[in-house]
């Protein structure tokens, strides 16, 4: 009866590269797959973002447009601003309206965000400040000055506070409709004119929740 060998046959480990497979010391058989993967990385992380950056957005706000967010919250963006995220009222995507909408004009940016919140506008502003400070850790945009009241065209009272950052200034406003919190953030260059400020204030005051009584 035959018996198997008593010691394993020698096999070199992965680090051994046959002499006829070396190219400048590396295993030439491993170059192809690595280049394929790096080509995919290049396409995904460089080519696609560059293509995206070169395509301008042209979804401009027309007079009378209303953007709607999750929780039946709406606002009226300024005409000729560009919509970079968000959906017009009446164009419900599957599921629900998104919880964020952003419109921009040049360096000016206005974002409205909604979410569940139990408390009043001042408490929401405190929560926003707390989260914002924790995320920014003293860097970037931060809240400055004392909160003041703001009333929307619907008659809803909210709280607002100025924000500043490097070469940036702006305002944060907070409203609470029932258990739906709304945060509006406007930022722009420090030398933005009074027209821009007026436009931002108009957008903030246009925030409403149809069917919500004023408080």
């Amino acid at each position: 009866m035959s018996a198997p060998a008593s010691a394993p046959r020698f096999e070199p480990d992965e680090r051994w590269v046959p002499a006829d497979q070396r190219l400048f010391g590396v295993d030439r058989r491993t170059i192809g797959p690595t280049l394929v993967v790096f080509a995919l990385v290049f396409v995904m992380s460089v080519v696609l973002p560059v293509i995206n950056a070169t395509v301008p957005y042209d979804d401009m706000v027309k007079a009378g447009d209303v953007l709607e967010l999750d929780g039946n919250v709406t606002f009226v963006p300024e005409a000729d601003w560009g919509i970079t995220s968000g959906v017009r009222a009446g164009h419900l995507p599957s599921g629900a309206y998104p919880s964020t909408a952003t419109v921009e004009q040049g360096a000016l940016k206005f974002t409205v965000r909604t979410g569940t919140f139990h408390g009043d506008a001042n408490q929401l502003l405190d929560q926003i400040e707390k989260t914002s400070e924790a995320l920014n850790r003293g860097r970037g945009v931060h809240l400055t000055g004392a909160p003041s009241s703001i009333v929307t065209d619907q008659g809803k009272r909210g709280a607002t506070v100025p924000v500043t950052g490097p070469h940036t200034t702006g305002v944060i406003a907070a409203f609470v409709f029932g258990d739906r919190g709304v945060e509006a953030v406007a930022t722009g260059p420090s030398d933005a004119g009074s027209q821009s400020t007026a436009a931002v204030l108009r957008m903030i005051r246009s925030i409403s929740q149809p069917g919500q009584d004023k408080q």
Partner: protein
Amino acid sequence: MTTTTLADLDRARDFALDLSGWGRRFSFYQPRNCAFWGYLALVGIGALVFAATLAQEYDAYGQAIGLAVTSFTIYAALFWWFAQHIDHYAKLPAKLMVVAFLWGGFAATGVMAANANDAILALYSKTFGQVWALNWGAGLAAPFTEEIAKGSGLLLLIALAPRQVRTAFDGFILGAFIGLGFQIIEDISYALTSAGTQFGANQIGASIGTILLRMVSGVAAHILYSAIFCAGVVYLLGRPAEPRKVWRGLLLVAIPMLLHGTWDSLDAVAGGNALMLIGLLIAVIVIALFIVARVYRLTVQRERDFVRDVMAPEQARNVITAAELDAIAGNRKARKAYRKASRPRVERKRARYVLNAAYSLAAELAAARGADTDRVRFARAEVGRIRAGVPPPPR
């Protein structure tokens, strides 16, 4: 009529071990391998990006991060156990599975798919409008970017471990671990996003639903998609133990993309009808599980054949019986039938132990490349001891 001799069986065993790569050790550090440096760079960048994100958000969402990391670590451990449980046969080195997991978690997500997804979704919004992008964007971006990002890791793994990754089943298992890594990191990111949905208040309440949903739906998501996709990649490329089958490979690469796209588009297909959405969710999960079970059965047969080739000489030498050989080289039903054939209950229990001891012997034989080493002789003696009902020596 030909007669198979013991020498023939030993030769067949050596051939099976060489072909399958079963039992070969894997050394990750390979400075002369381009794939090693490529892997290290991409996983390293991805890990740094992820760690920086967690560090940046920790002060704001610390509770949610703690909950998500703990929950998904347990989830990953359970899956790891399950993968070990279904892989009875020519097992891959655990180190290779860790390497696969890290690729899925850090390189495929942060370095590849996330960048591509953001760009494609933005392009969809600009081209087709926000509503269209919200409805269909994810379903027409993620299946391509994410499956390719995960699957490309297998190319590096094959370059790193060409003598271990030999069959479509190896691709299936490694794909599952790549998918697990991807899923865990993606799930943690989703939990973080949820933590911020209430302005940072009530983080646990805001994120727990997402965590549970991701855990349940994850069963038929990235793990499954990548397992099928990577089995397809092996069929497409061909390996020494797996002849190239281009059409089968293309089909297996396309199926997870289709499943992924369907999954991401369910909201849009249901059109806001909650009942239809639940029905579609269940249907897609059932179909996905059915397909993955079929792919498992399709790919595992070669591994079973390796087990049979490795253990046939043991049967010829009367270490195991023909019934035991059929059971260990068979499927779950075969093992169950073998156990149930024993009476009474104590014998059934012993039959299970004998099978486990035979699997251990197979693993030792593979590690020894079929040689008759001390460890192999001991494992062989263990089969006999357990069959005879002799208790183990005192510890």
